């Protein structure tokens, strides 16, 4: 079996968790309250833990002598395959929660399906991660309701964030050529089939939060093909700094 496509498929899943985890990590010490600060960085830690499992597996599959750290820290921007949504800047708390909420609902559906993969390592990671992501989803959904159905100001800010981030949601369900190959091999998840359930679930929470469900007909994409938004370069500069300055550095 050609392992290249499997490695690439793993990057496609893991990079989302890695980049979102990095964005959440930026909040360490900057959360609006101590409890929220801890919650967001705990979520980041869960995501990084999942990333390690994926990248350890990818390193094992690779013919090159590489480690999880090489994969996480030493690729170039074009080699990261995360969706545009997760690399968006934090801006304000409504954006942090909006981004998290829109990703968590997708993440939950993806991992639920990944449990049916023919690749047993991916099944194990999915089963483990799903338990954690259930907590993430509950946390972000609760905050959507609290801010949406809160004060006039919190509602307006939450609505702005959702409206702004909505254009990145369609990409979650796009299939790359590599995804199609992975689906054919019985390893990958056909994310295009999750779209309907996703928008239904997300709309339910937004309605309960008394927020409007955006009606957009234009969407942005590119991340899955390695073509990122202008924010990605800055994020990587920050994230890769230590590895590039002190090559081979370990925890």
């Amino acid at each position, binding site marked *: 079996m050609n392992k290249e496509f499997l490695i690439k498929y793993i990057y496609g899943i893991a990079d989302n968790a890695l980049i979102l985890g990095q964005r959440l990590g930026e909040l360490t010490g900057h959360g609006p309250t101590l409890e929220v600060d801890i919650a967001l960085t705990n979520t980041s830690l869960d995501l990084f*833990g999942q990333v390690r499992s994926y990248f350890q597996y990818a390193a094992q599959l690779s013919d090159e002598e590489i480690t999880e750290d090489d994969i996480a820290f030493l690729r170039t921007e074009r080699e990261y395959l995360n969706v545009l949504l997760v690399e968006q800047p934090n801006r304000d708390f409504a954006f942090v929660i909006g981004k998290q909420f829109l990703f968590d609902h997708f993440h939950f559906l993806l991992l639920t399906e990944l449990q049916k993969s023919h690749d047993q390592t991916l099944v194990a990671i999915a089963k483990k991660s799903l338990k954690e992501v259930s907590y993430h989803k509950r946390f972000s959904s609760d905050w959507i309701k609290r801010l949406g159905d809160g004060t006039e100001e919190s509602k307006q800010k939450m609505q702005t964030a959702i409206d702004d981030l909505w254009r990145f949601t369609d990409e979650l369900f796009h299939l790359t050529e590599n995804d199609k190959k992975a689906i054919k091999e019985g390893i990958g998840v056909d994310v295009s089939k999750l779209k309907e359930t996703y928008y239904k679930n997300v709309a339910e929470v937004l309605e309960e939060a008394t927020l409007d469900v955006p009606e957009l007909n234009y969407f942005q994409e590119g991340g899955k093909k390695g073509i990122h938004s202008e924010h990605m370069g800055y994020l990587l500069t920050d994230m890769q700094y230590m590895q590039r300055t002190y090559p081979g550095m370990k925890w």
Partner: protein
Amino acid sequence: MVEEKVHIEEELEPILKKVSDPEIPVLSIIDLGVVRSASLNGNKAKIEITPTYSGCPAMDVIGDDIKTALKDAGYEAEVNLILAPAWSSDWITEEGRKALEDYGIAPPMDATSDKKALLGEERIVKCPQCKSTNTHMVSQFGSTACKALFKCDDCQEPFDYFKCLI
């Protein structure tokens, strides 16, 4: 509750019982349920552990502590991290639950009660200090990934609740 069969070599059990989770020093790794197997071949011990949460930073320390403990007892140790089956809070032993409560951490409840407690539907989490159930959740995420933060409305003490993960 799924019955998980864990094989732990009798000879190794007392040694592993002395190794604890660095974040919850009163709980041995056996009682926490993270040791999934411990086998012995001559003086070569092979231990399999599984993380409670994917990003649990304690796993590396636990791995090192196991190696040290076994080395001190004259064994050569190999520690492997396994992911399947995924850890469940059901694997915490009765003894472990008691140790948690004595230490000031409310032990995990069953999944249904846990959900009700974390969603704030029912006040059922018992304060480990004064044993009152007049408590409320402050945050779903506590001092470590595996805990939620609660506060007792009777004795006013904040405390950690070990989240249910099944």
